[in-house]
């Protein structure tokens, strides 16, 4: 489950970044190559996400034929399934337009139109979980944004990493890499700060013992979310949360980016390497985020719902 | 289509019975008009929508036969309906009209079918040969076993055989087994009751005559107070909770639980007394002292119906509340509060079981409980009494039928010229022939080895024993070896004994534990569901258990095995008959045989025909009185609880009840010890205390020949005059034959965690010949045990398993609920020892008479059930020994689903002074993180 969330989120992020770079490429030529390569990366990552989903189904054959089976449009899984399904040909077309260099304008227009769909793929991984109303950690208000942001962040890292690798081991080394990496650095600072802010609000929300009443009238007692908060930040998952999400995923990249900027000159020869480490760090933080959220879901609040409360009609 | 609720206008269907079983107190008629739960629903499918029929009920197309039968696990005696198709047991239906359980079943009862269909059932006889298990035919197996037995008998005499019988055997098999031992010529036969309620039987039979539960599970519905001490009803007798909770809800009964742990049952108590294990007498005396101080005692009960009250009062002086509180660890205020609840809420019942019995002074414990009920005046009353919850499905029956080394059936004892004479008469054999079967008359009248310590008969030098030969052959016939304490010693005996035979539906720990290469036979027995017969539940209800299916695989009915064995040993002809002629119909003819001989306790009126008729008429019986209203059973009590003197007698649901005539089940206390005590005081009840409608309204002696008259005339005459055949006597606080404790005393456990109390509350002197083995008390009660072993070690039950667990650990469903052996350990103790929930730990206990301490490796279950100074182990596990998995010693394919270390490997030395009950509730140990 955490794999498809990660790759789903990543593919969304990658696409959005590819399109953004494509648009930047109108003005700054050095982004062209970066944008092109990123656009090639989206499809395999998306396919990987799809493969993981199918692999995790009890009946994969029924999942693959989802257009025939997915009927319940109240279910986020169906909406998500369709958005992934829709994304695949569009992403493929976009990549093809790049590959055959057919028409940049058509490509850019398509990119802009398709971006929200892919953004939604990231966003929806959070929505999917929030369908489980009785898992206090899976909050509808916080998770989708967190996952969207993390999707973009990991997308930046993923594309960046590939770019760095290509620059160093690829056939032709382009001279413009430092400019691209700097812009990516700015973006990373921005999204890391946003994610830190979101996480902080999310944890605040959990620890503040919110009373959660959902629309079906079930009452989830308050302490469920405090338990979840403690489980994540102080319990078994705490090392993953602090070292993984906060440390690897956010703090280290932030520090490395600052180092890059401040000691620009000194580290110039190593900048690719430092960036590489930074990107890998972000990616692992992203995986760990999914891991923590998914495993944190083991903690349900089963008996905070008093079974008979909603079972016996006392009308008649 | 619209689903409609269909109302059944008449007749009962299962579900209105279900409704009634939910609210028995709601009038049945009222409920049916309220549209009951006779709801027929049509099934609905996407393509298939079926119209609800006129009756609203579709019929299962299978061709099922319904067979009523009785659960084979615990002594509650629940009934259920087995559904069988082509001799295959396919499902279970609740028997809602069964008066005891009303359709309910706990996990073990609900898993009854799995006992039969489990893939792990032992399929054919096997023997261990050169370290390998080899399949045998029944004929070869029985031939080899019997010829070895004959050899052993020739070389060492009949006392070289020990038979461990079973409380799972029905009455007929139990009776046959005891008869078999007599015909073989030895008293070396015993069964689980020894390590279960022997101290209850000895204690209370010596108090008021009979050693059985006095009232019934159903009668608890009449109680205003339920005092539960040393019994965990929720796990051990789950269905009894139905009656207890009804009393709590409908009578506002006070539930008081006294237990060293906070048990599943404690959760339902109004008042909990958590106290130190092994201090029951002190706690009870504390309660009695509060009652006396406030004048709450029942003076007329004490004056008219008891003996030795002044002796009790003398002993009570040592138990002021501060002392009691110091000994028990229970706050004074709690004791006072509980005593007040009992005094203010009468009638109250007292429930006990293993927490009280399994101690070196277990007999004193049970006597002190009885004393409390006498003082409160709760005896002989609906809602009162001592509701002693017995263990196995037929442990009461097997005890009654004397599968014990100290008596023949019916508690006749072993008197060569009394007991053996009576039974020879019933069996239709010459008294002299019977005598000739034994080595000599002296040993014929001497109690044999017990389950608790039979293995010393193998291990000790024969000069130390109370018989002049060692034990060379052992039969485990429906018994586990992992239920005996000091199991590492048991293992040594199993290693050494010449011939070991295990007769069981499953491969048990007994067969695989010993380190040996030859001489072990395992014979597949049928389960209780594959053999018919009568079973006696805890409250003396005798119910007919129908055979559900034929014995599966090659397994055989226990009765068939024993008859085969008797034939091969050469006394089959004498064995298979009685004074009325040879057995023709089995098991019914055996029922008729014990009907004839079981005079003492009135197991005489429960004919096969009456039992089978009751089975059909369960719905006619009232839940609170257990009496049938109308129909062919009119006036009878469910289960014809003994004494049921004649074929017209309704049975005696409540013992010692004087408010009804003898003809309806009334009686006084038994006049068992003559009319005058050695001290000259009278033993006959006072004026006006006879059962109503009695021709003598005071105490009277027992009728002449009432125990041996096989015609039944004595009973009929007595009942006609309103007299109980056994007289009308007094209950005894003071028992002069118990030389050490004529009145019960608190005595510190042999392994006491309070060495400072040992001098004042010392245990007994050692005994040289106690059931043929020397037994240590004082010389093992050492003050410094506790230095090395600071923790109290106790043991008991889990709801899903029974006894040694050799059946249940082979049932996958049950193991799924309870997959692992564990030790309960308090969070404080765990933290102090850096142990976390789920960690492996070693539990180690003193060396006692061995050279080394014993140890087991188990997982820590951190829980607040136990106090911080104790460790609690469930004892149902086997297959692992001293941390070593024994899987490779099982025959291929027979490794049970559940394997774990046996608690009894570390249970300490300690045996009851009177009955040799093993002390498995209080010992010492220490823990080491593994």
């Amino acid at each position, binding site marked *: 489950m955490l794999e498809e969330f990660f790759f789903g989120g990543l593919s969304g992020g990658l696409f959005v970044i590819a399109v953004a770079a494509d648009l930047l490429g109108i003005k700054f030529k050095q982004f062209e190559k970066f944008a092109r390569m990123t656009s090639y990366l989206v499809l395999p990552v998306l396919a990987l996400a799809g493969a993981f989903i199918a692999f995790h189904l009890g009946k994969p054959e029924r999942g693959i034929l989802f257009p025939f089976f997915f009927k319940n449009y109240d279910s986020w899984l169906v909406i998500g399934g369709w958005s992934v399904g829709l994304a695949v040909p569009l992403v493929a077309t976009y990549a093809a337009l790049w590959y055959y260099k057919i028409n940049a304008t058509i490509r850019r227009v398509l990119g802009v139109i398709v971006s929200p769909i892919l953004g939604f793929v990231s966003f929806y991984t959070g929505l999917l979980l929030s369908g489980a109303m009785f898992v206090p950690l899976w909050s509808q208000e916080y998770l989708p944004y967190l996952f969207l942001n993390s999707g973009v962040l990991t997308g930046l890292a993923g594309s960046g990493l590939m770019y760095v690798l290509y620059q160093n081991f690829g056939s032709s080394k382009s001279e413009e890499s430092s400019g691209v990496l700097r812009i990516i650095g700015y973006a990373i600072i921005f999204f890391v700060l946003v994610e830190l802010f979101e996480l902080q609000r999310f944890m605040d929300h959990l620890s503040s013992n919110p009373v959660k009443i959902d629309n079906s009238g079930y009452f989830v007692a308050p302490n469920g979310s405090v338990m979840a908060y403690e489980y994540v930040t102080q319990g078994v998952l705490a090392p993953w949360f602090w070292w993984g999400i906060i440390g690897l995923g956010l703090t280290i990249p932030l520090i490395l980016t600052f180092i890059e900027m401040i000691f620009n000159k000194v580290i110039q020869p190593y900048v690719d390497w430092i960036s590489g480490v930074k990107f890998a760090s972000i990616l692992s933080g992203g995986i760990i985020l999914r891991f923590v959220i998914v495993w944190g879901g083991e903690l349900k609040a089963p008996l905070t719902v008093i079974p008979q409360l909603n079972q016996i009609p006392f009308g008649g | 289509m619209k689903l409609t609720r269909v109302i059944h206008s008449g007749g009962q269907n299962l579900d209105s019975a279900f409704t009634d079983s939910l609210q028995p107190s709601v009038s049945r008629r009222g409920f049916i008009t309220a549209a009951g739960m006779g709801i027929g629903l049509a099934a609905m499918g996407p393509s298939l929508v079926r119209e609800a029929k006129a009756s609203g009920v579709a019929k299962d197309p299978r061709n099922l036969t319904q067979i009523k039968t009785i659960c084979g696990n615990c002594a509650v005696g629940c009934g259920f309906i087995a559904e069988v198709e082509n001799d295959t047991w396919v499902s279970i239906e609740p028997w809602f009209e069964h008066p005891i359980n009303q359709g309910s079943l706990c996990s073990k009862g609900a898993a009854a079918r799995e006992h039969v269909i489990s893939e792990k059932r032992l399929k054919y006889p096997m023997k261990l040969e050169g370290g390998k298990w080899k399949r045998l035919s029944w004929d070869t197996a029985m031939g080899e076993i019997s010829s070895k037995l004959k050899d052993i008998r020739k070389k060492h005499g009949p006392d070289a055989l020990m038979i461990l019988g079973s409380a799972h055997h029905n009455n007929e098999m139990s009776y046959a087994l005891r008869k078999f031992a007599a015909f073989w010529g030895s008293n070396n036969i015993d069964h689980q009751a020894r390590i279960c309620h022997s101290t209850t039987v000895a204690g209370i039979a010596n108090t008021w005559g009979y050693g059985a539960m006095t009232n019934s599970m159903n009668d608890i519905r009449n109680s205003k107070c339920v005092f539960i001490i040393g019994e965990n009803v929720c796990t051990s007798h789950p269905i009894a909770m139905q009656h207890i909770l009804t009393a709590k809800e409908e009578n506002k009964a006070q539930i008081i639980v006294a237990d060293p742990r906070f048990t599943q049952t404690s959760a339902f108590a109004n008042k909990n007394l958590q106290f130190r294990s092994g201090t029951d007498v002190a706690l009870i005396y504390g309660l009695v002292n509060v009652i006396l101080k406030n004048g709450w005692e029942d003076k007329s009960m004490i004056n008219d119906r008891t003996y030795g009250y002044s002796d009790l009062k003398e002993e009570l002086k040592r138990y002021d509340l501060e002392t009691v509180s110091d000994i028990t660890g229970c706050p004074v205020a709690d004791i006072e509060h509980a005593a007040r609840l009992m005094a203010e809420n009468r009638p109250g019942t007292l429930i006990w079981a293993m927490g009280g019995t399994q101690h070196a002074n277990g007999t004193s414990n049970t006597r002190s409980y009885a004393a409390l009920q006498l003082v409160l005046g709760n005896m002989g009353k609906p809602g009162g009494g001592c509701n002693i919850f017995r263990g196995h499905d037929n442990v009461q029956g097997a005890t009654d039928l004397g599968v014990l080394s100290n008596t023949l059936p019916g508690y006749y004892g072993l008197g060569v010229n009394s007991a053996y004479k009576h039974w020879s008469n019933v069996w239709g054999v010459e008294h002299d022939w019977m005598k000739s079967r034994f080595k000599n008359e002296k040993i014929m009248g001497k109690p044999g080895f017990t389950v608790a310590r039979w293995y010393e008969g193998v291990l000790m030098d024969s000069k130390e024993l109370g018989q002049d030969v060692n034990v060379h052959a052992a039969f485990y016939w429906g018994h586990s070896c992992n239920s005996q304490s000091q199991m590492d010693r048991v293992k040594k005996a199993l290693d050494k004994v010449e011939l070991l035979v295990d007769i069981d539906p499953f491969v048990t720990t007994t067969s695989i534990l010993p380190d040996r290469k030859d001489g072990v036979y395992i014979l597949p027995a049928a389960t209780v569901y594959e053999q018919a017969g009568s079973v006696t539940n805890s409250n003396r209800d005798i119910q007919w258990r129908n055979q559900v299916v034929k014995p599966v695989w090659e397994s055989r009915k226990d009765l068939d095995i024993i008859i085969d064995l008797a034939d091969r040993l050469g006394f089959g002809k004498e064995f298979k008959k009685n004074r009325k002629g040879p057995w023709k119909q089995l098991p019914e003819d055996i029922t008729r045989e014990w009907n004839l001989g079981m005079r003492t306790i009135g197991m005489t009126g429960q004919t096969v025909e009456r039992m089978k008729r009751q089975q059909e008429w369960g719905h006619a019986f009232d839940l*609170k009185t257990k009496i049938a209203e109308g129909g062919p059973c009119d006036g009878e009590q469910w289960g014809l609880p003994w004494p049921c003197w004649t074929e017209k007698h309704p049975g005696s649901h409540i013992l010692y009840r004087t408010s009804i005539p003898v003809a309806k089940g009334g009686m006084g206390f038994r006049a068992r010890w003559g009319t005058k005590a050695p001290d000259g005081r009278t033993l006959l009840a006072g004026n006006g205390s006879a059962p109503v409608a009695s021709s003598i309204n005071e105490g009277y002696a027992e009728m002449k020949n009432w125990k041996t008259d096989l015609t039944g005339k004595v009973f009929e005459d007595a009942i006609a005059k309103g007299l109980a055949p056994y007289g009308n006597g007094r209950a005894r606080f003071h028992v002069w034959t118990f030389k050490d404790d004529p009145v019960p005393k608190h005595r510190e456990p042999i392994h006491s965690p309070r060495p400072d109390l040992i001098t004042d509350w010392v245990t007994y002197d050692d005994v040289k010949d106690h059931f043929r083995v020397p037994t240590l008390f004082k010389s093992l009660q050492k003050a410094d045990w506790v230095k090395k072993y600071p923790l109290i070690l106790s043991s008991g039950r889990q709801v899903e398993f029974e006894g040694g667990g050799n059946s249940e650990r082979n049932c996958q469903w049950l193991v799924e609920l309870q997959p692992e052996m564990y030790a309960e350990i308090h969070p404080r103790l765990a933290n102090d020892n850096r142990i976390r929930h789920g960690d492996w730990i070693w539990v180690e206990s003193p060396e006692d008479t061995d050279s080394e301490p014993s140890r087991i490796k188990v997982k820590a279950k951190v829980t607040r059930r136990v106090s911080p100074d104790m460790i609690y182990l469930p004892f149902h596990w086997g297959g692992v020994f001293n941390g070593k998995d024994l899987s490779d010693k099982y025959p291929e394919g027979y490794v049970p689903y559940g394997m774990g270390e046996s608690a009894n490997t570390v249970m300490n030395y300690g045996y009851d002074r009177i009955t040799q009950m093993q002390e498995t509730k209080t010992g010492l140990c220490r823990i080491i993180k593994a």
Partner: protein
Amino acid sequence: MATTNITIPNRSASGPEGKHAPARMKFYVDTKRCIECGGCEIACKNENNVPPGIARIRVVTVNEGQPGETNVAVPCMHCSNAPCISVCPVDALFNRADGIVHVNKETCIGCGYCLYACPFGAPQFPQGSPFGKRGVMDKCTYCAGGPEEAFSAVEQQLYGSNRIAEGKLPMCASVCSTKALVAGDAEEVANVVRYRAAARGSGNIWGAGTAYPSN
């Protein structure tokens, strides 16, 4: 047979059509009575031949070993407004007219989404955790089989027995040791609850005070 004189009046208020109103099948778990005996769990296995690793009903204990220890048996509660139904992507879950929530094993894709949605952990998957393991979802059927022909071999094999079609009630409730688990038509079940509330004195049923403020 009756000794206590309480009768529940005929529900005449609902009029004759009340008798033909669709039944709504419900469970009631009396937490003041459940003794954690496991009878319901095993009875379910026995009745429905549920494979190892699948627990259609489980007993949960709260505050073990402490005052206030409480046990709750949790089968599928056959929720009205069931959250599992709303998340299932393929509509394999559905409400029968009598309120029973069924799963169609022929269409379930085994995504496990229902397990996360269900407040009671009722959906079960072979071999433990969902996502990552094969097989389709199994859960308590209210002993009503599944969306196949009643008593057919397919139904028996996929879903277990169909007691409801026979006019019998669920096995777990039928054998419950202490009658803690009550099943049946909602109104009848409510009668039992009322009766017990009356016997215990008001406010004694766990949660009753919150659910049914003084009436």
